């Protein structure tokens, strides 16, 4: 497979020593008739091979939009990337011509969607859809492509893959469907896999199976995984590092252990406190007061200040807090991170 990959190396300027994926100061906005919604306002993170980065946040904080921008499948218009860069091995994907960009997709960076039923084309069998990827990208014959499709379905542990390859998406159960979606995304051996809430549509037992499968496949392939989720329970098991997003900004970035033991941003702290625990049985759940800001009207200063119990005057003034280095490889966008850490 590597020799084919070498032939595919048509992207100029790829530096194998550069970081696998780097997102710098990414800004995305949606220009609608009701105003400009600033969905992503300076997202920063990086990813190394074999590593799992979780992007965590409430609904509407810009997680999925960030993923779409990295993938290059943002609907434009109304979505526009106004600033920033997405570097794959040193190459800024946002500056690549569309033709080359398309080659990066699936070959280097692939994505799985939240709802696998709507992400698979209902009029083709899963085998046909998988085989098509090989026929188009690898120029395989129909027979060979079908064989590869069955192998892949086997790899994602679909029982009786040989028979199921000619079933239609609606004939699969939710978990099996997500496995097909994973097979599809992994078809061309990408180095980066973005999983956009891969288990949200599934029930808890199947969730665990899918997460286990993803972790296993990631290890086999030494693949970088970006896991987008709002589920802190899922994150704790699989992630190496976490980027917490709020109102389109990464407000805290740290190793998973650090975040869970000592959060440095009040938002992260509030999120952790809102996880229901067994010893809280019968008590009210801790919630974060208020709602995330409307993206058309983000508060001045720190976007979290109206809901923050640490907020003081500087938080309500522009400029927004910069990314303070809390520790090596650990940042937080909070003026009072020391206080939050409890120092």
């Amino acid at each position, binding site marked *: 497979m590597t020799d084919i990959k070498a032939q595919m190396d048509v992207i100029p300027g790829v530096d194998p020593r550069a970081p696998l994926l780097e997102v710098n100061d990414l800004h995305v906005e949606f220009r609608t008739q009701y105003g400009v919604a600033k969905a992503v306002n300076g997202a920063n993170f990086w990813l190394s091979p074999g590593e799992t980065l979780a992007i965590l946040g409430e609904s509407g904080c810009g997680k999925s939009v960030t993923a779409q921008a990295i993938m290059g499948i943002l609907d434009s218009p109304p979505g526009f990337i106004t600033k920033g860069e997405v570097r794959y091995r040193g190459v800024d994907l946002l500056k690549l011509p569309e033709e080359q960009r398309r080659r990066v997709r699936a070959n280097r960076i692939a994505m799985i969607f939240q709802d696998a039923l*709507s992400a698979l084309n209902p009029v083709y069998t899963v085998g046909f859809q998988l085989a098509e990827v090989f026929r188009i990208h690898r120029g395989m014959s129909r027979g060979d492509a079908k064989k590869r499709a069955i192998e892949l379905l086997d790899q994602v542990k679909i*029982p009786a893959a040989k028979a199921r390859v000619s079933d239609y998406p609606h004939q699969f159960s939710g978990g099996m469907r997500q496995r097909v979606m994973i097979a599809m995304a992994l078809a061309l051996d990408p180095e980066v896999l973005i999983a956009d809430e891969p288990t949200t549509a599934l029930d808890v037992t199947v969730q665990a199976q899918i997460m286990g499968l993803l972790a296993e496949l990631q290890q086999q392939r030494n693949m970088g995984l970006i896991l987008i989720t709002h589920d802190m329970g899922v994150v704790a098991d699989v992630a190496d590092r976490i980027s917490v997003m709020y109102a389109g900004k990464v407000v805290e970035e740290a190793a998973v252990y650090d975040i869970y033991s000592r959060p440095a941003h009040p938002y992260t702290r509030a999120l952790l406190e809102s996880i229901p625990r067994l010893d809280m049985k019968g008590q009210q759940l801790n919630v974060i007061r208020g709602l995330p800001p409307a993206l058309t009207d983000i508060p001045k200063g720190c976007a979290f200040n109206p809901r923050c119990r640490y907020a003081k005057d500087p938080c309500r003034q522009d400029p927004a807090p910069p990314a303070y280095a809390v520790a090596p490889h650990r940042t937080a966008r909070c003026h009072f991170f020391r206080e939050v850490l409890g120092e």
Partner: protein
Amino acid sequence: MSDLNSVTAAEAPDQMSTQPRPRRGKQDKPRSLAGDAWNDLRKSKIFWVAIVLVVVVLLMAAWPSLFTSADPRDCALSRKFGGPTGGAIFGYDFQGCDVYARTVYGARNSIIVGIVSTAIAGVIGIVVGLSSGFFGGAVDAVLSRFIDIMLAIPFLLAGIVLSSRLSSDPNDDGLIAVILTLGLLTWTTGARVMRSAVISAKNQDYVAAGRMLGAGPGRLMLRHILPNSIAAFIVVLTILLGVNIGVEATLSFLGVGLKGDAISWGIAISEATGTARVAAAPLVWPATFLGLTVLAFIMLGDAIRDAFDPKLR
């Protein structure tokens, strides 16, 4: 229930047979959408009834002499409104012509006008609807306004003008003019239906997934969006086929359709309407043939549409 299913499915491969399975042909044969559709169609009674009707009508159009040995232009006023006799099983019309022979010979013009004009309207409708729905923005604005303008023009007026301009030569039989007129004026409904179906299909995740896997706009349109949005369009076209066969009669009646002594179901129907109370047969028979033909095409369209929708399997 689905929870249970997925858990057992993952843990106990042997129990997979609880899942609904489609009928399968030979395992090693690769299945494709068209192949599966054909398998389905072969088993559909409606499809075969429709096919038989369509084949009969097409034979009638191609070789009318297979069905009657009488001459449709052999008319004698002495036989006006005569009842059925030996060869003329449907009797005679107000000119004393053999109704059966004229109905058989009328198939050719009616079928050609219906199929070709619907095909033209279909191609324009698909191209306009697909591109305005898929590209959106300025393309959509221009094409949609164009559709609006086309719809605002009174159909009959436009038909008369266009048809008479297209066949100004008196020796011309007017067939091509009628076909073009109908094709160019009737694509709008289909285009609108197509456009809205494309817009809803385009926002589906599988289109985003296709882009994620590196598909270009052409592949997205033809492979992913078109097959998922064509169902309603096929229905519109099958209805349009019948309507166009009828409208040809209107144009011919007004003198801008088929000219001279052309024979068609539409002409026969419009000629016989005035005298229907005196003699019903000259009206009923061509109308029945027209109705059966349209019905056959509608059934065919339905069967094909259903066969191409895997969820109905």
